[in-house]
């Protein structure tokens, strides 16, 4: 049991876990993730069996990857616990132990005096212990690695919660319409535009949220990089679309209907004669002879939209094109093709803001921990009349610095001194 505990908290085990996580991650980027099984059979004919059996098509959701993360959390927890105890023990008797260190570098009397001034200039605090003086600085640096490991542990835990607990809904909504969530929350989209005043792409909508308890948000601007939070919901500008707009007038009674078309549709009064809407193309080129080439993809708003549909009359399908403003009459119906309508695709997240806040706090803690670990290394120098010795958990920097600074005052080699 003790051996298992030692293994679980050991650095070697932690490194093995990190290497395995890295290896799985490499596989997860080399092999496209989340496709259907048939796709792997087609694209990896010789190894698809292994890919599917080892779940390399969904590495980051596989049991073994999650197990590695859980083991890493366990390793970090145990390692942090053991480390903090060891650090507290080390810090307690540090001054006495430092005072008892034999000099590793012997200096001339002039060098010793200069060293004293140097350590004072470094703003080290000093304590006399017998004939020796112990100089210290950055005592809190002892806790750097503990803080770092703790913050990584917290990041993994809160990161997993932030990643897997929110409920995410992607929903398109026409301007002026509303989205109703299962709990009764209403999200109203007032307007949407793809470009700003200067013509620069900038997907922007105005939304208003009403919670089930009738609390209502202000009208908020929603843009990429500027989500909007209200109650438990966080709204993101995720995507956008362009819908065809057709007004149909019944010539007999004058009644009209407006249709926003995002997919194929059949518009008819009698089910026999009408139009079969195919799609709206963003742009087209008309050559001198009148032939039209349709363009399927453009960036931003549609520069020259054109409707593509079939006129169905007497069982005959006639492919037809219409530009915004065009009208068509068919057996008692008038179809007017309007300018297209742009609409946003929103991502609606039901999220715990506490979890997000804790995750961001863990991030800050990690940066603080790493800064303390790397840039506030504890300084522990023992000096006496003959020379000095450097102690502490990370003596390397100080040894090199002092060695460079006082090499001209050295009286003898390190080996001789010890």
């Amino acid at each position: 049991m003790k051996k298992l505990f030692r293994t679980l908290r050991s650095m070697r085990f932690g490194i093995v876990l990190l290497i395995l996580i890295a290896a799985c991650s490499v596989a997860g980027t080399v092999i496209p993730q989340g496709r259907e099984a048939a796709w792997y059979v087609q694209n990896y004919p010789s190894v698809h069996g292994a890919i599917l059996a080892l779940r390399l098509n969904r590495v980051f959701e596989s049991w073994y990857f999650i197990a590695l993360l859980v083991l890493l959390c366990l390793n970090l927890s145990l390692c942090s616990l053991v480390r903090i105890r060891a650090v507290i023990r080390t810090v307690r008797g540090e001054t006495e132990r430092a005072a008892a260190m034999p000099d590793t570098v012997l200096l001339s009397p002039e060098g010793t005096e200069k060293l004293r001034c140097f350590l004072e200039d470094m703003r080290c605090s000093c304590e006399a212990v017998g004939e020796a003086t112990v100089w210290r600085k950055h005592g809190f640096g002892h806790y750097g690695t503990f803080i770092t490991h703790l913050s990584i542990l917290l990041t993994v835990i809160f990161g997993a919660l932030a990643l897997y607990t929110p409920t995410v809904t992607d929903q398109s909504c026409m301007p002026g319409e509303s989205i109703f969530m299962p709990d009764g929350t209403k999200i109203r989209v007032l307007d949407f535009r793809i470009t700003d005043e200067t013509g620069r792409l900038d997907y922007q909508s105005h939304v208003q949220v009403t919670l089930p308890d009738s609390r209502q948000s202000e009208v908020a601007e929603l843009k990429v990089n500027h989500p909007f939070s209200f109650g438990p919901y966080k709204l993101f500008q995720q995507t956008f679309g362009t819908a065809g707009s057709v007004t149909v007038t019944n010539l007999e009674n004058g009644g009209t209907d407006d249709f926003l078309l995002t997919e194929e549709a059949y518009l008819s009064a009698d089910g026999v004669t009408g139009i079969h809407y195919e799609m709206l193309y963003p742009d087209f080129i008309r050559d001198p002879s009148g032939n039209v080439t349709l363009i399927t993809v453009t960036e931003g708003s549609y520069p020259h939209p054109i409707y593509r549909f079939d006129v169905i009359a007497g069982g005959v399908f006639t492919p037809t094109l219409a530009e915004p403003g065009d009208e068509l009459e068919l057996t008692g119906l008038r179809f007017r093709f309007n300018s297209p309508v742009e609409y946003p695709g929103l991502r609606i997240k039901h999220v715990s803001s506490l979890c997000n806040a804790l995750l961001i706090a863990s991030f800050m803690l990690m940066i603080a921990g790493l800064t303390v670990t790397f840039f506030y290394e504890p300084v522990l120098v023992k000096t006496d009349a003959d020379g000095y010795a450097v102690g502490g958990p990370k003596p390397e920097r100080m040894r090199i610095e002092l060695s460079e600074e006082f090499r001209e005052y050295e009286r003898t080699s390190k080996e001789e001194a010890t």
Partner: protein
Amino acid sequence: MKALFFAAFALYGVSVILEFAGTAFKKDRLLKAAWYVFLAAFLLHLGFIVTRGIIAGRLPLSNQFEFANAFAWGVALMLVVMRPRLKTDWLSVVAMPATLLVMTYAALQPMEIKDLMPALRSAWFGVHIGSAVVSYASFVIAGCIALRYLLSVKKGSADERALAQMDYISYRMVAFGFLFLTVVILSGAIWAEQAWSAFWTWDPKEVWALITWIIYAVYMHLRLRRKRKGTAMAWFLVIAVPVVFFTFAGVNTLMHGLHTYG
């Protein structure tokens, strides 16, 4: 404006030639000339970055060219800052070619200035990408120092003090880069939550940044806890540099993901 870039590029090339010649023939005057030419290139390069930033009306860090250009400048900046502090020039012979290498990659990328896409218009843009520049440059410099360490050990041309200094400085550079890589990943996560609604999406760029982080975390543990130093650790740093380059350029070229901005 392109003239500034190519002038800097050419001067970096000249400085590398002078540095190699000075090292091969042990001529101090050539080495000195190499350093001054390098400084001139560095200033021209800075001029190019500032000019491009003014013309674009934003930080020039938005696509592969701009990032590679800043990355090269970052490597040069590290050398410019460190050389006088170290009071030695053992770094130049490896760091100058490294700068030229990244500049060459930048020169091969499309250079036109484009409007920032909406997803990139964020306060995190400078923090995230600026940190990446600092981090990658630090890792490359650490790799350069490690390479120089290995060459010195092989030739027997450096004393123990110099080797200890090289070993220690390479570790410090990794520590510096590691901190900034952590900032890259964490600021990227916060930004991703704002832009794409999730802190982490397992996007190839994110994953490779994490892999790079893990590799250097393993280095730090071996160095700090197991007290591993010297040749083995130097090899580790040299071998890690291609991973940094893959994370920087390979992922964008070979893998499709949310970070594919062109």
